[in-house]
Each structure stands twice: as C-alpha cells, then as structure tokens.
C-alpha cells in the first residue's frame, strides 16, 4: 500500500489533494463558523463556511475554510473517495470535507468523544477491509463498526458515522457518552 504522512498545513493539504489519494486520514479539529467561536473575526469570515484547524509554519492554528477547500478540490479535479476524520467532535470537520466534494466521510458524531481504543480498532479494521481485502467503502465501514461493537461496546461503535455525498448519514444509532480520546 502506498501512503504518506504530513503535517496538515495549507501547502501540504494542496500537495496531498493533487496526489489524488484514494483515502485521506485527517487527524485534526473542526470548528463551526459562529460569532461565539471566532469573536470579532466572524464579520470577516462569516460567508466562508465552517473551518478546519490546520497548522501554520510555527505550529499555530491556521483557519482553513470550507469554501477554500471546495475550491482547492474543484481546481485539482480530484474528489476523495473517502475521508476519515478521527478526532473527537469531528462531524464539523467531516462536513467540511463532504461539502467540498468528498464522496464518503467517516467521522465521530457531533458532541461525542471517542476512546483511543475504539478509534484505533475501527481504523485498523476499516483500512484492512478496504485496501487489503478489497471491500467497498460502505461494507468496510459496516464491518469496522461491527468489530468495535463486538470487541469494545455498541455505544462506542454507534459514534462512528458515515456521511455519503448527496445522502443522509448512515449508521445513525442513538449514542451515549462514554470514555474519551
């Protein structure tokens, strides 16, 4: 399997998109574009969509807006087959990728924290099923979720959601709060 790892700066994100990977594993935060989150800057950015928190060259937070990501994906003429945003509360970040054109996005349901153990187990089974066993994205998602449900517990499993471009979310079971990442 061919893979690469990088810090998520704007430049590296651009380079990754033009590499046309099948899957992007994004480990990072997403925030909602609201006055409460941005303060006075909200007036400047209010029409640019929600935000991915990337890093700048100094390791500080760098806002990357949904609109910019959408444009970047459009001009590179490449849509990700699947994006996995693995951090807690990652539905915002996931929706940014989805709205920007990603075909499938796996993320953690809004307002939920996920345990390291569950996240790792899910990632392992998902990538193995997708790349090694050559299943499609939806089947790989279901198999990985089932694994977490059996090995960890069903409440952790239900926090993983699959967003599909042009459809409602998939696997939307009710959730209960639990241990965290």
């Amino acid at each position: 399997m061919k893979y690469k790892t990088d810090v998520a700066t704007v430049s590296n994100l651009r380079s990754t998109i033009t590499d046309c990977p099948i899957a992007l594993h994004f480990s990072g935060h997403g925030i909602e574009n609201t006055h409460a989150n941005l303060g006075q800057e909200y007036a400047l950015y209010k029409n640019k969509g929600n935000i991915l928190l990337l890093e700048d060259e100094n390791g500080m937070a760098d806002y990357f807006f949904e609109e910019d990501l959408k444009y970047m994906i459009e001009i590179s003429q490449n849509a990700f087959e699947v994006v996995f945003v693995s951090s807690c509360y990652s539905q915002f970040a996931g929706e940014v990728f989805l709205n920007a054109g990603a075909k499938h996005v796996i993320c953690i349901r809004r307002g939920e924290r996920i345990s390291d153990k569950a996240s790792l187990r899910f990632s392992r089974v998902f990538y193995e099923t997708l790349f090694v066993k050559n299943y499609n994205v939806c089947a790989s998602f279901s198999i990985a979720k089932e694994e977490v449900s059996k090995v960890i517990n069903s409440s952790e499993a239900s926090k993983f959601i699959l967003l599909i471009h042009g459809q409602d979310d998939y696997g939307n079971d009710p959730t209960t709060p639990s241990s965290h990442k």
Partner: protein
Amino acid sequence: MSMKKTKSQNLQMAEFSFANSQSIQSLNANQKDMILVQLLKDLGLFKEKLRLAEGEIMHKEYHISRMKKDGNSYPVELNESRLHLAFLFSSPLIRRTHVTVENIMQLDYLTEINDILKV
C-alpha cells in the same frame, strides 16, 4: 294398448324442449359472460401487478445506477492510484484571535498513525 301421442301433446313437448334449450343457451351465455368478466378482472389484476413490478424494477435500477455512480457498490481501484492513503495531522496548541489566545487539546496523532500502519 298403445300410447299414441296426440298432435297437441307433441306440440307441447316441442315447445317445452325449445324453451329448455333456450334457457340452457341463455345459461351458457351467462356463464360465458361471467367467465369473460372474471378474465377481465384477472387481466386488470395482472396489469396492476405488472405496473407495480415495473415501478419497483425502475426504482431498483435507479438506486443501482446511483450507487454505481457514487462508487458505493464497487471496491476502490488500487492499481490506478499513485497514492492510496494520505495521513494529515494537525494539532496546533494555540489559537490566536484578535483579542484572545486559546489553548487547544493536543491529539496523539503519532501513536494513531503508527498503530494503523502496523496493519
């Protein structure tokens, strides 16, 4: 003693048998009508069933074509891609706005990546 039928008796018998045959004919015609009506009813039912089945097939075909278009029903094509998986990790510790400086929780992305790559 021979039982000779009179002319009027013969006439009566003939009328009687004619009436019988007419009523049998009319019964047959009614039966035929009933059968035809039943056939028409069945035809209507079959047509309705066919219409529903056609609708269902069209609905399923639409879903299949949509799933094919979205790439949901096929495995991803690994050979045609020059990169399968990209990890991008971002865990800035500080978010500075015009007026505030906020600390952000660090993510343990290195462990996460290493553990996934063991697969």
